[in-house]
Each structure stands twice: as C-alpha cells, then as structure tokens.
C-alpha cells in the first residue's frame, strides 16, 4: 500500500447559458440599481496609464458563419512594460493605473465586443525567452460547455511573433494567423472562429 494522494478534483464546468449577463453584466441587460457599473466594463486604461492606446474589436463566430450575440469575452493582459497587475507577478511592480482585466458582452444586435486598452509589453516565457506582445482571452456563451482560452497577438509585431515560443509550438503553420489581430491605425480586429476552415487556435492551459 502507498499513502493516498488525497487531492480534490476540480468542479466540472457547465455552460454560462443564455442569461450570463444577469450575473456578470446586469446593467447591460437593463437591470439597474444593484451594481453601479458592470464589472470590467469601460476602458481598461485611464489618463495616467502608460502605453499606446488601442481599441480591440472582434466577434465570436459559429460554424455557420453567424456571430454569437450572447457571448461574453474577458481579456487579461500585461501593462506597457510587460508586467501583470497581480500578486503572482514577482518580477516587478505593474503600472498602478492599469488593472489589466476587462469583460465585454457581445452586442445583442451585431455580436461585436470592444475593449479600449493599451498595447501590452513583452512577457518572458518560462525559460526566459520573450513572448511577443499578446492579450489572453476567455470566451463563454450558451452552447460553449467549458470556457475557451485563446490569445491575440499583433500584426505589427512580425519580428516578435516570428520568435514567439507559443506561436512556434503550433505545428500547423496555416493556423498561426488565427491568433493575429489585424492592426489598422489604433484599431486591432480579432474575430474568433469556433469552427470551420479558420477555426481559431484554442489552448489547454
């Protein structure tokens, strides 16, 4: 006999369902007076935040090509210098004017999500090599049984993207562009495809 390991098991995921807005963005669905604002809504940066202002726009698109109008998207990113505003960030102190997390429900008519934020700096991979600037995303919706993790990189970072340890791990190179947000001016467009020829790369992290 050996000692038992005695680890607990993670609670299984269940879909966020069609009414995730009630719990996570009640003002968005017209329920006012309980929370002053919806958590994670509005710009991620303020006047004092360091870094280049960008707008991320995108949609989550199903296997028929239809944008989801009930998806909820969360982003988490480093500050302009590549530090996370988190107790688990031990390399240095992040910009106190940048929380780094945002939440946006897809527009109920168009399915679009929008984040006003800054372009993140580079963060080292576990072996010390620098990753290219990226934003991590988490997507839930009715019909999605377990939240989907992905990343958005930037089209204006070709050299950094070429040496990124995560992008380089993707065996099928034709799939790499599904992780690159297209930058035009200060707007970065990132559509997420759940299925089909252009299915976005999702991670088991």
């Amino acid at each position, binding site marked *: 006999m050996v000692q038992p390991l005695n680890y607990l098991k993670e609670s*299984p995921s269940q879909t966020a369902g069609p009414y995730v807005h*009630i719990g996570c963005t009640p003002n968005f669905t017209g329920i006012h007076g309980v929370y002053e604002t919806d958590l994670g809504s509005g710009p991620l940066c303020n006047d004092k935040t360091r870094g280049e202002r960008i707008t991320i726009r995108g949609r989550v698109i199903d296997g028929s090509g239809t944008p989801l109008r009930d998806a909820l998207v969360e982003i988490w990113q480093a500050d302009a210098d590549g530090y996370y505003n988190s107790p688990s960030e031990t390399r240095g102190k992040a910009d106190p004017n940048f929380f780094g997390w945002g939440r946006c429900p897809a527009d109920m008519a168009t399915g679009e999500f929008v984040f006003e934020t800054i372009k993140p700096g580079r963060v080292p991979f576990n072996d010390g090599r620098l990753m290219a600037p*990226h934003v991590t995303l988490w997507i839930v919706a009715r019909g999605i049984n377990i939240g989907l993790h992905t990343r958005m990189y930037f089209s204006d970072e070709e050299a950094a993207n070429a040496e990124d340890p995560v992008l380089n791990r993707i065996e099928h190179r034709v799939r790499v562009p599904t992780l690159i947000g297209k930058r035009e001016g200060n707007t970065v467009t990132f559509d997420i495809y759940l299925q089909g020829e252009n299915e976005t790369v999702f991670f*088991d992290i």
Partner: protein
Amino acid sequence: MKNALPETGGFFARDRAMHPPALTPGYKTSVLRSPQRALISLEGTKSEVTGPVFGHNMINEFDNDLIVNYAKPGEMAIGQRILVHGRVLDERGVGVAGALVEFWQANAGGRYRHKKETYLAALDPNFGGFGRCVTDENGYYWFRTIKPGPYPWPNGVNDWRPAHIHFSIFGHGFAQRLITQMYFEGDPLIWICPIVKTIPDEEAIKRLVAPLDMNNTIPMDMRAYKFDIVLRGRRSTFFENRKEGN
C-alpha cells in the same frame, strides 16, 4: 501551504475527462459552437498563472442578499428562503482567499429577468436574480436567496432544467477561471437534463449537487444548502520558473 505569500507555481493539468467535451449533440446549441480541432497544450506562462484581484471594498452591503438586493424598501422576493454557503478550495484542499464569486438564477417560478427570456411564468418585481461576494481568508462565501424554480427550455420538445444557480468564479490565476452550476439535492430533473448530461462522469455531476445542510439551517427562517467549489490546484514554486541556463 498558506496563501500569505504570493504563489507563482503552474497549475495542475486540467482533467478534461470529467469536464464536458465541446461537442455534445444532446445539447443542440453546442453543435455549431464547439471547436473541432484539438486544443494546443500550453503549460502556464505568466499570462495564465497571474490574475486580477477583486477587493472586498467593491462589494456592496446587500450584494449577497438576493432576497432584498432588488426589492422595494420594506419588501422581499417571493419564494423559499435559503442560505447557500460553502468554500472555494483548490485541488490541494487549500481555501482560496479573495476569490470573486458571482451568481445568477431564475426566480421561484423559473423565470429569469432578461431581455431575451420568453417563459410565461411571472416575473417577481422584487427579485433581480443575481449577486456576488468575495471569499474570506479561508475561502468561505455565503449568500441568501430564494430557491429557483425549474423551467422548460427549447432544446428537445419537452426539456426542463432542474432548479439551479449559475456560478462564475475567479481564483488567483486566469487559468482557474470557471463557470459552473449548482443543483439541489433530491431534484429528479438533474438526471434527465441535457446540459447536466454534457458532463460524462456521474461522480463529477454529484460534485455539483448541493446537499441540504440542516446544521446551518436557521430555525423558523431559512434552510441551508452547502456548496463547495474546487478550482485547479497549483504547484509549489521552488523549482519553477528557472532562470535561463539553470
């Protein structure tokens, strides 16, 4: 293994055999919304093992009291008064302090307060159906609400959801992010629900069923249901994140 020191270790690999797969045809909406290619495995980097902190100061006094948080002054939501309480733990059994727990549910008649909700059951003018709290230093949380009703939904011709409360949980790392649902002990609808049945493992389903907790039931006031939530565990940090060349 206290949470006093910041933890930086990677998370335990997710056991996907007990989570629902993406494609579950019995739950029809998943058919066009399920990725079909294999997930790319990625051990947690800084981008996944870090996460935001939500302080207790963002929580208002009545955020964890759904009986009154939407009610007119002096009035209360209609339904069976219940207390839902438990701990947010990680797989090591450590209480997750400072976890943000958000919850939402239908009213006692099974009706949600949402623009797109069409069920004919009545709305309760005093019930919003949502709340939130941040766990204490031991990972403990609690809220007061009314027991939600089951309701029909368009999937099969005659599918009904068991009574349930939705939970969204933020642990210490973005990799721990989880949305799930709590069911109530003794509800026969649990075992015939297409959404419950997306979970392939019966033992895992049981971990989402909250037992009646008579010890914490308040006499002449409200029954208690105990619901512990387990997030992914993380490794100790001593040999993690080696400097280059080590």
